[in-house]
């Protein structure tokens, strides 16, 4: 075995400092008053203003945005994250099941039609996507926020790979027992995919929670604002103000990053599995 070298630890500690110090400073600064931050800069120690700031950000209406509270944005972000993750898993498992377990006309064509969506990220086709959404009257709806994001085949690709690795004997046995396609899917395949579903769920929840551009375009009605959208608004208010509400901005940033970071830290093993095996 190799000896422990202090140099290795030094590099790791520097890496951790570079990555984590900004987060810690944002967290600590959010508990200081705005004037305090303005005159003394960011701080590494907690201040005495935390409860006040967070109460204001969470419950106060008409602060940096017109009439939306942090609590409401938190709820919308949660709907976005959960709705996206659940929708993605449901759609992609069903599609992958059809592609792997059935022999039918046009299967290959459909496979390519679905996987071609990996070619174009949403950012490239935002303008026309926006027009389609407004023609369908889906602006300022949860459907409009979540469903269009489901149009990429990442999940389908992942479940397809997974289903292909499931032993053929299972299907043979199920068919001998007289199980039809629906029964086989619900009673055999879904329970078998539980770990995979959990891993994908974590990745997709973070992905949905962290969406920025799409909510920015889809929502003009403040009651649909997510936390990411709130960050955009708080910055817009900054222009022209004497001492910007640094503390509130930091508090909002903390609210926006705590849930996904907690999910990653708590379910670390599953998260790494989902990430490295689904290849994004």
């Amino acid at each position, binding site marked *: 075995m190799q000896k422990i070298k202090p140099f290795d630890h030094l590099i*790791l500690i520097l890496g951790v400092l570079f990555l*984590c110090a900004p987060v810690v400073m944002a967290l600590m600064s959010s508990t200081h008053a705005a004037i305090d931050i303005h005159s003394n800069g*960011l701080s590494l120690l907690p201040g005495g203003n935390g409860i006040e700031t967070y109460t204001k950000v969470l419950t106060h209406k008409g602060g940096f945005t017109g009439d939306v509270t942090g609590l409401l944005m938190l709820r919308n972000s949660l709907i976005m994250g959960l709705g996206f993750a659940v929708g993605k898993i449901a759609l992609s498992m069903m599609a992958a099941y059809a592609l792997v377990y059935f022999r039918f006309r046009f*299967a290959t064509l*459909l496979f390519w039609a679905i996987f071609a969506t990996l070619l174009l990220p949403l950012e490239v086709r935002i*303008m026309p996507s926006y027009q389609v959404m407004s023609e369908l009257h889906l602006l300022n709806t949860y459907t409009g926020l979540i469903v269009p994001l489901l149009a990429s085949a990442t999940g389908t690709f992942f479940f397809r790979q997974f289903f292909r690795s499931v032993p053929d004997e299972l299907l043979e046995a199920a068919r001998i027992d007289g199980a039809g396609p629906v029964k086989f899917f619900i009673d055999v395949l879904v329970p078998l995919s539980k770990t995979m579903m959990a891993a994908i769920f974590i990745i997709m929840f973070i992905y949905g929670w962290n969406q920025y*551009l799409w909510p920015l375009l889809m929502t003009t009605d403040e009651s649909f604002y997510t936390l990411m959208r709130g960050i955009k608004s708080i910055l817009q208010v900054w222009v022209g103000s004497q001492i910007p509400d640094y503390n509130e901005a930091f508090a909002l*940033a903390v609210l926006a990053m705590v849930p*996904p970071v907690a999910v*990653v830290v708590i379910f670390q093993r599953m998260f790494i599995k989902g990430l490295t095996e689904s290849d994004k």
Partner: protein
Amino acid sequence: MTDTPLNMVEADQTLVTRLRAWWSGETANPAKRVQFDRPLTPWLFLLPQLAVVVIFFYWPSVQAVTSSFYLEDPFGFGSTFVGMENYTDALNSSEYLGTAAFTAFFCVVVTTLALSIGLLLAVKADKVIRGAESYKTLLISVYAIAPPVAGLIGMMFFDMHMGPLKDLAAFFGYDLKVGINYWDTATALIVIAVWKQIPYNFIFFLSGLQSVPVSVREAALIDAQSGWRRFWDITLPLLAPTAFFLLVINITYTMFDTFPIIDVIVKDKPANNPMTLVYKVYLDGFKGNDIGGSSAQSVILMGVVALLTVLQFRFLERRVHYG
């Protein structure tokens, strides 16, 4: 070239068999030995995904391509067919080319830095025993932070009044003006984009390193005494597939996922600030109301992404087959 006729016959046969197989739904290499043989059920399972893909992917994509050939009236009084004009306009504009050049530069710098720092940390985290788990958790946790939040925190660090990095630059006698000076803003964008991407690369490099069999590691330890030699001759070649995969992902990330960071730092004030091609598509389309021009830029980007994805796809299949 002498055996061309034979090859052609073979190719013809495979083509016919392939077409027949394609029509009946069989593939040359079916996913499963046993499959259900029902005409309707698979369609029901596919229906939700297909509906979403057609409405929210194909419809807008086709619209992007069509409107790239038209000049839309900004006041909504119809549009005129202009052929390739939107494309030639974009490709001849010095502004577009400048943005393209910055995007390329941004991609090279961010990808190089994020990959090398990620690799360095992964190699070290793979080596240490004491505290390995804590290092891992701390280094990974930043992955979950959204790009706009990263942008916001980064902006505070570069802030005129209270940013510690501004003070640091001032200490060395440099006046850092993010949001005003082109290269200062570029520096801020690079630092934030790299910061955000290191954990992702770290996770993949570390899992790549840890999948190297113990026997190989021990053999390497005996054969190559110097740590550097071991790294260059054994570790790096074994990591090459992971590194290549990450290279494509990092380029895609820098081109598209940095949008929120740019939006937060540049804040709709592109005056003298750097931006990427994707951000320009957004600005021209939504702020400039130049729908045709924005669409043409979209289509050009589609070409770039398609190329990247084909690379990635070829590689994914390989990775899946050989583990």
